[in-house]
């Protein structure tokens, strides 16, 4: 969905006090019934990430970590069946998954010393049953499944959605009989930067030439679009000419301002597509007139 900046700002304002939980998502959805849930979740997720980036450092201070950890130990001992970590995360306004990560990291220091690897930490977050402490494992699990912005579950979902939309895009292209090279093919040919799709024969979308298509299963806000432009879209333009970006979950309409420069934004697979059509006899009627 293409949002005006004003609409977008309304939504952002509504997310300011929300926590990354399903309940909060419900609140947001009720407040903006006309917007799709995916769009709202994507906007919220992006906003929450920004918020976290601003505040995360204060949770990483050694003394803070230590006090969180001691509090967890005490409370978990007192109430082993309660979702202690989740409650703590909500209380100190930190993402549950990140809280879980913080505590698990501290826990592993005790168990295996300073030297535990990040890989071990990540694998335990993904698979809590690997955690030697049963209570902690339960708590980590609760954190993971109750966080809609961070954590291995969310990563997994995001990845799957991304894949799904790429498949969707390829299907649409095949449906329209447009042949293309995908990222994997391009890599084997030695391209240094590769969009999701390069069209073998360019098309025109709404009057603009399109050589490549990049699929983004997220909402295009200022920050992420700017980052994508600098790291991806312009690089594609620099190599393949003008192209199309599909933000499947919508974008701020005002960002679609580089059309003439070769970056076109859409929130769905375009319908207005013009292809090279060659009916060899198209010239004839005119010629007749001339004669």
């Amino acid at each position, binding site marked *: 969905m293409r949002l005006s900046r004003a609409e977008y700002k309304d939504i952002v304002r509504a997310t300011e006090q929300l926590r990354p939980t399903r309940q909060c998502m419900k609140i947001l959805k009720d407040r903006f019934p006309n917007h799709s849930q995916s769009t709202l979740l994507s906007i919220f997720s992006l906003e929450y990430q920004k918020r976290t980036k601003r505040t995360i450092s204060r949770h990483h201070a050694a003394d803070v970590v230590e006090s969180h950890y001691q509090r967890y130990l005490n409370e978990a001992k007192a109430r082993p069946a309660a979702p202690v970590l989740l409650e703590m995360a909500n209380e100190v306004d930190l993402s549950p998954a990140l809280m879980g990560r913080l505590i698990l990291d501290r826990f592993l220091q005790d168990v295996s010393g300073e030297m535990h690897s990040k890989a071990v930490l990540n694998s335990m977050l993904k698979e809590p049953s690997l955690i030697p402490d049963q209570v902690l494992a339960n708590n980590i699990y609760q954190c993971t499944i109750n966080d809609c912005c961070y954590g291995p579950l969310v990563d997994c979902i995001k990845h799957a959605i991304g894949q799904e939309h790429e498949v969707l895009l390829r299907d649409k292209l095949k449906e329209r009989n447009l042949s293309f090279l995908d990222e994997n093919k391009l890599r084997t040919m030695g391209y240094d930067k590769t969009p999701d799709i390069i069209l073998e024969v360019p098309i*025109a979308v709404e009057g603009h030439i399109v*050589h490549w298509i990049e699929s983004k299963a997220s909402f295009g806000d200022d920050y992420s679009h700017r980052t994508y432009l*600098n790291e991806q879209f312009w690089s594609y333009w620099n190599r393949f*000419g003008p192209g199309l970006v599909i933000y499947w979950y919508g974008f701020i309409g005002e960002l679609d301002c580089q059309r*003439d420069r070769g970056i076109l934004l859409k929130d769905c697979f375009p319908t207005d597509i013009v292809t090279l059509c060659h009916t*060899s006899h198209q*010239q004839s009627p005119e010629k007749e007139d001339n004669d």
Partner: protein
Amino acid sequence: MAAILDLHLRKVSSAAHLSSKCCSSGQQERDSLPFTECGVTVQKHQFVSFLLNFLREQSSPALAHGTPAKTPNRPRPAAQTGGLSERRACRSAGSATTSRSSSRVQLFSPPSFSTTWNPASRPSGSDRRHGQRPSPFQSQKRRGGRGSQHSDEMGFWDTGSKKPGRGGGHSRSREQLSPPSTLNFNNLEDFPPVGSSPISPLISKPSRRINPTPVSAERPRSKPKTCFTSTPFTKLSSPPMGAEVLDGSMRVGSPLSLQEERELLKREKSKRAQQPAASSPCLSSLEPCTPPKTGVLGGAKVTPELQTLCPERSKVTFTPELDLLAELYCACISENLVPNIFLELFFVMQLLTSMSPPSNDRCYLKQVHNCVYFAVTVLENQFQLVAHLDKGALRLLAENERVASFSPALRDLLIQAQGKSSAKLSPSVSTFIHSVPFQPDTDNRSNFGNDKAFHTFKKQRDVFYEALREWEDLHNEPGWNFDASLGGRIRGMMNQLTSAGNHSHFARLFLKQLVQMCKGPRMSGAPGEPPDADLLEMLGADGLGRLKRLEERLIQPHGIVGPCPPPSFPGHQEFFRDFIQTASCCQLNQHLQDSLCQQLLQLDEVSILSPSASIKEEDEDGDMEQQKQRFSSVLLLARLLAKFLGFISFLPYQTSERPSREIQEASVALRSKVSVPVLDVCAVLDNSVRRRRTILTVPWLVEFLSMLDFVGPLLLCYRTALGTLLLLYRRLQLRRCADVCYLNKLLLVSVLGWLFHDCIPLVDQQLLYFCCPFLSEFRKLLAAFVSGSTAKSGGIIRKITPTSAELKDTPIANRSQQKLQGELEQAFFHNQPPSLRRTVEFVAERVGSNSVKHMKATLVSELMDRGEKILRDKLKSLNFNTSKLNESICALLCDAGLEALERATRFCDEKSLEAVRTLLPEETSPTVLRTSESITKRLAAEKACSWLSANITGKLIKDL
């Protein structure tokens, strides 16, 4: 010399004698042809220069009064000599700074400065040289120190005494001539240096601050301030400009009071604001490029009355003398005895549009009646040249009431010529700009020595485009500075390239992007302003073109820069120039030079006639058109590359000031021994002359040489080349060539004006104007006059009929669809290997041509038989009727035409398919193959059909 002319003007009867002696007979003994008249021995070239000076001298009062735009070559402030880059920037901006004089001026003349290149302001005799008549040139000389001596040596424009190869004329004895009467390349007044006037009025505007100090004869010392000129008068002892002004124009109005001046300015300003498209002559004199002296501004007050002063044929005095002068003058132009025919043409148009106060002096060109009479006479005489101007200029001339009242015959000729003129000033060129495509063949990892180099280049490509985009967005913003904004990034990039050894890759990217953006004629003149998509849809490409032209008119009503603009880097070229300068990377420059040189030499070898066309009898027009296009594309590319090659090659030697004579001599000695010129210009030129290819070589060599540094022209190799070019120029006489080659020659005359001989009419008017945009100055001058003189009657040419946007209809929609298809086709080739495009174009060309041949052999010959039969039958019947005969033949042709098109198209379809399948690689993907086939089919059929449509009727009728 004055005596001779005077004598002849008094005895008009012997004029023809003088004229013929002066010009025609010179052909055989050009080197030294003394006149021995009245016991005075005069060199011919001395006479020519005297004549030119004389005319300017004579007309000075008339022109001082406001031709709508004076020849605007006029120096810019010398203030900005802060550094090379700044100087360069100035050069690009077209402003001539003192330092600006560098290469271009030096080619022909060292910097000299007058407030305007006002034809009136030339001193004519040595008596005035140090007297009241200022020669700013001299003050400049003093400033310039000894270097100025070279000015004299270099600058003689001697009409024959110099042999090519001997170079810059060092051997000439200067004592012979008094400098002011020498036709002197050095003299800015004679030959406004290419480069002395602003391209963009905006840029120079700040320096045009109007200082409200009133002018008065009593305060001559304050002159520098009171002039609206930015001329640096460093030497107060040099006679004040005011003297000159007072000489002529100032007499008209008494000095204005400060208040009056302010009022006047205020009025002008509001007028300007209200009608930007229709400024009056005096307004245009406020344009930076048409520097009004205060006196002239004073004159502006009386302009309304002056305007009403209508030149009349009956009031012309000295008719016989004027006829003689015109005859002499025309002879000089026709024989290429003048240094720049367009400069003279410009002068003539100034005379035509001059306003002058009534006066009783005995002066041939003081009266506007006489000026106009003289101008019209010259225009009539030089009609062949005039006829090749663009449509706009011709129309303005034809509509000029002075032309009409003095010579209805000339007006009629002009109206006729208008119909033939094809030169357009605002070509509609696609502004669709691509990046340089990534081609795995040349760009993937296997083309780099190691991973690091590959990944570094990946980043550099993006940094390069980022800089380009930023430049597009911001370079027109006030206060934006290339080096300050992008310098750090670019130099960082150079360091990275150096450490990775990637210069050759980057140089390739750089040049490809340069060619892509700048090859077309000024196509990127307005970067960062892509046409609004919706607007395009609404108006269609044509409408947009018109809108653009309208916009140009509104923004730049009369930005007259004169016929000798400086070498410039318009549009995106500026980015590439600034990039090279800012990067300041010797490795990159070397790679660029190597590559440019190689490409240029290749282009220079390109066969001007492709094999198919050299087999003559084949297909006449169809191929010729293609040849022309090919030639113009090669020529434009070569000129671009040559300019950049010259820029890079002479960059190390550029100095902001002309070096002193000692330094010059030392560097000549050093450079002739040590440094090997990047391009053997003499060999290239000699080869080109021998092979009769000057039409291609000379225009790009001119671009290359226009970048010479101060010392460059003194080096033997360049001196020789310049000498050869000069010889070529002298050999050229436009009026002696057949009509078909006229434009070829005109192009050569125009690029600096040189010609040899070519017999293929390759140049069309469009190309001429692309290469010599300054030719449009004539139109501007005339337009300025019209808008001034007809302001009261509503302004005939500025009338703009408003068109409603709703008028859009299907044809326009079709057109934009066609445009889109064209873009898609171009885009298709963009990301394919270049060989694909070459194959498609080649096949289309051959198949199209074969199809035509086939049609000729089958259908056309069959038609001929049938036609003949009809003719015979009809002729046999006694009462044959011509109109009926025509009818039946026409019917036959009409059917035949349709059939031919159909059959040709079928032929193209079949053959294209086979050929493309055979020629493209087996591995080509099916879609790409299919698309290539259909593009080939279309191109081939288009070629064949357009030939058939154009020729079947004509050919049949001719043959029957």
